[in-house]
């Protein structure tokens, strides 16, 4: 045996099964944006449809609504998902971030309680990490969870909660030891968002939509059983979650390969007005999307062989976020005078989605830990440079 870049017959059969289901089920019409109320509801309906086909999260064990797939099968699923032009995942904070965290740190009861409705698209999750004064400096958390009997009473102010405006639940870290500071004394707690003492306010984004939110906790009371892991273990668990975020799953290569393909088509339609640099950028997009896929397959097969993903996850975060920006910048350049038109402008004539993608791509180098923070991590933890 050696490096084998071929799918097994079983993998090919799995691909065919996914493809057939997607062809039969993916909505013909593009859904409204996930960042608005109507669009979010449409996306939740799609999540439930997916779950109906048991495609909600294929790597999960069957008991939680999954199929027990390998990572390679998951990558195949993603390839077919994006090839079919299926909608973005409203559920991604749940299935890609909290899900793996629960499987690693949750009690059997917690797994049984939270995972099945997550896979089923019945409960949508948001994250509640950042606070106004704790962005990149996540250890500066001030929100508190005060133990009172079998409950925690939550107080504080979280912000930049993706999907927070429309989600049902949030996971986040709170200071359970009031005397602690920095990374210590934090606990990882799950909170229902439609709950007394919890107030959610949507934050308008660059594009005007309000899909992310700030969350005010005003003496919100949740059972101690909502704590994931031990009291005071919140930082370590959050770091594991952040690792999932930067690592393999949040941005599957298929998504970027699909964008690179569409960019190639856009180039061919507009080649007569392109210059040499944008031609090079389009070819580079194809190459880098392939590189991202190859790197992900390498990581996936390493993990399947028992390996771990560590600080090198930060490399992924930088690569895909910059790739996404570069691809959309090339598209903006190809569109030229039409690039500024919103999708519903008559003269946008079907190319307005690129503008939406361009705006969204701006957030890539910022969220899930700014790329500056990722570069620090690479230098210090991968290369061993002094702090």
């Amino acid at each position, binding site marked *: 045996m050696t490096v084998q870049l071929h799918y097994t017959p079983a993998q090919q059969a799995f691909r065919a099964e996914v493809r057939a289901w997607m062809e039969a089920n993916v909505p013909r019409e593009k859904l409204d944006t996930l960042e608005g109320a109507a669009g979010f509801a449409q996306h939740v309906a799609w999540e439930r449809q997916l779950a109906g086909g048991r495609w909600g999260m294929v790597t999960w064990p069957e008991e939680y609504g999954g199929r027990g797939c390998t990572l390679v099968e998951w990558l195949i699923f993603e390839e077919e998902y994006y090839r079919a032009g299926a909608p973005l995942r409203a559920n991604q904070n749940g299935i890609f971030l909290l899900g793996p965290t629960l499987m690693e740190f949750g009690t059997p009861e917690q797994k049984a309680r939270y995972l099945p409705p997550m896979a089923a698209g019945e409960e949508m999750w948001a994250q509640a990490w950042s606070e106004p004064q704790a*962005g990149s400096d996540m250890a500066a958390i001030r929100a508190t969870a005060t133990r009172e009997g079998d409950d925690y009473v939550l107080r504080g102010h979280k912000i930049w909660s993706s999907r927070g405006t429309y989600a049902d639940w949030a996971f986040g870290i709170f200071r359970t030891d009031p005397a602690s500071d920095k990374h210590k004394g934090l606990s990882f707690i799950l909170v229902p968002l439609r709950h007394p003492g919890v107030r959610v306010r949507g934050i308008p984004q*660059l594009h*005007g*939509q309000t899909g992310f939110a700030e969350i005010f906790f005003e003496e919100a009371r949740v059972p101690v059983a909502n704590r994931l892991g031990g009291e005071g273990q919140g930082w370590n668990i959050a770091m594991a979650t952040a690792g999932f975020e930067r690592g393999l799953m949040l941005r599957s290569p298929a998504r970027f390969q699909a964008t690179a393909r569409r960019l190639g088509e856009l180039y061919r339609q507009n080649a007569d007005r392109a210059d040499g640099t944008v031609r090079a950028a389009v070819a580079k997009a194809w190459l880098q999307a392939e590189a991202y896929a190859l790197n992900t397959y390498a990581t996936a097969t390493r993990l399947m062989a028992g390996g771990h993903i560590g600080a090198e996850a930060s490399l992924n975060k930088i690569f895909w976020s910059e790739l996404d920006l570069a691809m959309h910048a090339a598209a*903006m350049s190809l569109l*030229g005078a039409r690039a*500024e038109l919103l999708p519903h402008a008559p*003269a946008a004539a079907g190319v307005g989605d690129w503008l939406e993608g361009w705006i969204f791509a701006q957030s890539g180098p910022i*969220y899930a830990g700014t790329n500056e923070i990722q570069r620090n991590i690479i230098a210090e933890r991968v290369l061993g440079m002094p702090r």
Partner: protein
Amino acid sequence: MDFTFTEEQRMMATAVRELLDDVAAPAVLRAAAGAPELNEGPAAGGDDPQRWARLVELGLPGMLAPEVVGGLGLQDIDFVLVAEEVGRAALPENLVEHAGIAVPLLAACSAPRAQAWLTRAAAGEVRLAVGHPLNATVLGAAASDALLLFQGDEVHLVERAAATLQRQASVDRLRSLATVTWTPAAATLLAGGAEGAALRELAFARGAVVNAAQALGLAERMVRIAVDYASTRQQFGKPIGSYQALKHHMADVQVQLEYARPVVYAAAARLAEFAAGVSSGAGTAGATAATAPALLARLNAVVSGAKLMAMEAADLAGRKGLQLHGAMGYSWEVDLHFYVKRAWALAGSWGDRAWHQRRLESLVLDGVVTDDLAVLHHEHG
């Protein structure tokens, strides 16, 4: 050889800045843009007749009109600093195309009808929009009284009522865009043939230069917003602006900006000279039939260079400014996005990046003796 602006030029720019700091302050833009989730933006693109009146008070619409028709009798090199201020403010009204393109076009046009419109346009009593084939839309068409439109080598002036407008929404809500359907007629014709072609060429060059100038102002504004934020926002116990990575982001923008600046100014200076030649009927000052194409090539090279460099500076300022703001930069709550979106919108107008890049490459690399294209040293040889 003197590459400094006069005291008068600087005073005019300062007066414009002070006015716009007042009537187009970020809070004013925010209110004009409407509720974030509106998405359509305000129907008028934020256009405000009262603010227009203030611009008129300063004489800005008629800056490039001759004094005999009530204008200030100034030149492109004077207007470039005003356009820069308009960019810095992300002004909703289409002052730059009215005053920087349409008015000097009318002033250089021999048709009597042009002169009639010129007087009123210079006084700001009527507003003009310009539709160039390379632009996908016409800026400020809805608020205009008439449109300058091109058909081959012909220049037409079409009253707005005679054209059909279809509104086109921009990512920058404070730009009112429309596509225009119209029928060329003898009654609308202002100029054709060589005169029409020359007017069209000049209009296009002016469009590129005033957009480049706006990009300078935008870049400077975005750097200022980012630096201010970085000086107050604290992470890990110190202002984020004290981190070397963010310092170097901003330093990189500043380098781009400060080297784009003289190219934009040189383009404006060359444009003024060239325009003076065109309107005197001499092609350009002292140019013979043999040298005129070289002069045009040189003008085009510096105009494309100006547009490319200034837009690159504004693009970089936007990206680095957003990055420095972190999640805050991705929100509607900071002012930065008004300027970022204006920069995105201007990038594709009056020749997009690829168009100017291709023209520049062609002029500099293909068959033309490079030396003849030097922006500064054309007295050589």
